[in-house]
C-alpha cells in the first residue's frame, strides 16, 4: 500500500517537479510565444516573456511564402500510409512469433531489430539510385514504402510484446469454435489487442512524422513533408526568429495535439511495449 505523505513533502515534490517539467518544456513554450511576436520583439534584449504585442502576422507570412497545406498533407500521407502498411504486414508476423514460437523466433526477432541498426547513410546512394531508375524520386509512395521498412522491425516487436500478453488458450478456443485463421485474427486477436495496436500505431506515426533522413534526401518539390518544409528555414531565414518560430509551431503542432488527446496510449506506446 502506498503510504500517506505529509502535505509539506507533497508540496516540495510538486514544486521541484513543476520547475523541472517547465524547464524541459520551455524551449517549446518559448518557440510558441516567439511565433506571436514581431521580429524586433523576438530578438529584444531583455527577452519579452508575455507582455508584447501579440500578432499572427508571422503565420500569415509563412502561409504566403510556402504551401504549408501541401507539406502537411505529404506528412500525413507518408506517416499514416507507412504506419498502416506496416501494421498490416506486422500483425500476421507478430501472431506467428507470439503464438507459434519456434527455436528460431527469437533469432528472427533480433535479426529484424538489427536491420534497424544498418546505418542509413551506408545505403543512401543505392536507394537514391534505385529511386531514380524506378522513376520514384520525390514520390510519396516510395517514401511510404521506405519508412514502412524502416519502422517495420519496431512495429513487429511492439505487436509481438502485446500479443504475448494474450493467453493462447483464447485463440485455441476460437479454433475449437470453428473459426478459421483469418477469423481468429480478425474477430478475436485484433479486438483483444486494440490498446496495444493503438499504441503501436501512434508511436510509429510519430516516428515516421519526425523521420528526417530519407524525407530530406529523397524529396524535392512534390513529396516533401514538414521536415523538409522546416529545413528550408535554416540560414539565412533562420535569423528571422518570429517566422522561424511560427513555421516550427506549425510543424510540430499536429503531433503535439495528437499526443495531448491520446496520452494514455502514447505513454504505453513510448515504452515500445517492452516495460510493463
Amino acid at each position, binding site marked *: 500500500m502506498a503510504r500517506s505523505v505529509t502535505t509539506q513533502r507533497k508540496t516540495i515534490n510538486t514544486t521541484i517537479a513543476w520547475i523541472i517539467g517547465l524547464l524541459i518544456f520551455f524551449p517549446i513554450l518559448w518557440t510558441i510565444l516567439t511565433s506571436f511576436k514581431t521580429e524586433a520583439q523576438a530578438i529584444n534584449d531583455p527577452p519579452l516573456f508575455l507582455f508584447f504585442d501579440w500578432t499572427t502576422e508571422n503565420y500569415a507570412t509563412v502561409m504566403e511564402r510556402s504551401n504549408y497545406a501541401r507539406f502537411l498533407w505529404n506528412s500525413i500521407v507518408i506517416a499514416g500510409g507507412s504506419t498502416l502498411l506496416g501494421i498490416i504486414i506486422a500483425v500476421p508476423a507478430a501472431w506467428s512469433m507470439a503464438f507459434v514460437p519456434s527455436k528460431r523466433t527469437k533469432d528472427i526477432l533480433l535479426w529484424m531489430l538489427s536491420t534497424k541498426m544498418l546505418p542509413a547513410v551506408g545505403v543512401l546512394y543505392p536507394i537514391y539510385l534505385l529511386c531514380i531508375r524506378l522513376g520514384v524520386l520525390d514520390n510519396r509512395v516510395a517514401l511510404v514504402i521506405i519508412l514502412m521498412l524502416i519502422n517495420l522491425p519496431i512495429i513487429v516487436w511492439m505487436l509481438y510484446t502485446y500479443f504475448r500478453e494474450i493467453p493462447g488458450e483464447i485463440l485455441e478456443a476460437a479454433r475449437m469454435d470453428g473459426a478459421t485463421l483469418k477469423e481468429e485474427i480478425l474477430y478475436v486477436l485484433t479486438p483483444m489487442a486494440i490498446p496495444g495496436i493503438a499504441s503501436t500505431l501512434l508511436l510509429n506515426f510519430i516516428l515516421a512524422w519526425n523521420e528526417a*533522413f530519407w524525407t530530406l534526401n529523397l524529396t524535392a518539390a512534390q513529396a516533401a513533408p514538414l521536415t523538409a518544409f522546416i529545413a528550408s528555414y535554416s540560414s539565412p531565414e533562420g535569423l528571422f526568429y518570429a517566422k522561424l518560430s511560427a513555421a516550427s509551431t506549425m510543424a510540430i503542432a499536429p503531433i503535439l495535439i495528437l499526443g495531448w488527446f491520446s496520452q494514455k496510449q502514447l505513454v504505453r506506446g513510448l515504452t*515500445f511495449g517492452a516495460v510493463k
Partner: protein
Amino acid sequence: MATKASRSAARLMMAPAVILLLGWMLVPLTMTLWFSFRTYLPLRGGDQGWTGFDNYVRFVTSSSFWPAVSTTLIIVTGVLAITIALGVLLAILLDQPMWGQGVVRILVIAPFFVMPTVSALVWKNIFMDPTNGLFAHLWRFFGADPVSWLSNAATPSIILIVSWQWLPFATLILLTAIQSLDSEQLEAAEMDGASPLARFFYITLPHLSRAITIVLLIQTIFLLAIFAEIFVTTGGAFGTRTLSYLIFQRVLESQNIGLGSAGGVYAIILANIVAIFLMRIVGKNLDT
C-alpha cells in the same frame, strides 16, 4: 504447442515481413559493396571500373576518419549517459506523490514529439545564437561574454540538443518500470534498516536494470543514425562530423560514390559490432 497446419500458417504469415526486410537489407547492401570496389564519380566521368581496396584504404587513412569515429562514440555515449542518469532521477521524482502529475508528465514527454529538424533549428537560432540567442541574453545579463555555442563548444551543444530530445523517452520507460516495483519490497528493506540510499542501490536500481537495457538498445539504434541535428546546426563543422555524416558528405557533397560506399561498409561493420554486443544483452533480457 502447435500443429503442423498452424506452423506452416505461421511461416506463411511471417514471410512478407521477413522477405521485405531481407530485400531491404540485401539489395542496397550488395550495391554498396559493389560500388565500394569501384571508382565511381557521377559528376567526373562516372563509373571508371574496378579499383580493388583503394577506396577502403583511402577512407581509413583520410585525416577525417578517426576523428569521425571518436565524435560518433562521444555523442552516443554522452547522450546515453546524460539521458539515463537524469532519466533515473526524473523517474524517481515523478513517481513521488504530487499535484498535477499528469500535466508534469505531458510537459516532460513533449520534446519527444518535436521533429529533429525543428529542435535543431530552434536550439541553434533562438537559444544558442551568439548575438540574439536567449543564452546570449542570459550571459550578458550576468555580465559574461556570450559563448558561440555551435562553433566553440559544438559537440557538447549537439549532445545537449539530442539529450533534450531523448530524455523524455528514457524517463518514461524508467518511470513505468519504477511504478511496477512492489512497494512492499522497499518497505521490507526499510524494516531491515536500509537507508534511502541503500534502498536505491540495492532494490530500485537492480529492478530498473531491464528497463535501462531497453533504453540503451533503442536509443543506440536511433543515436547512431542522428543526422538532421548535425545537418541543420553545424553541417559537420567544428568537430561534429560523425561517421554517418562523413559518409554523407563523401556521397552527396563530393559525389565520390566509391569512397562513400567504402565508408558505408565500415559504418555497417561498426554498427554490427555494436549490434552484436547489444543483442547479447537484450537477448538475455528479452526472455521474461
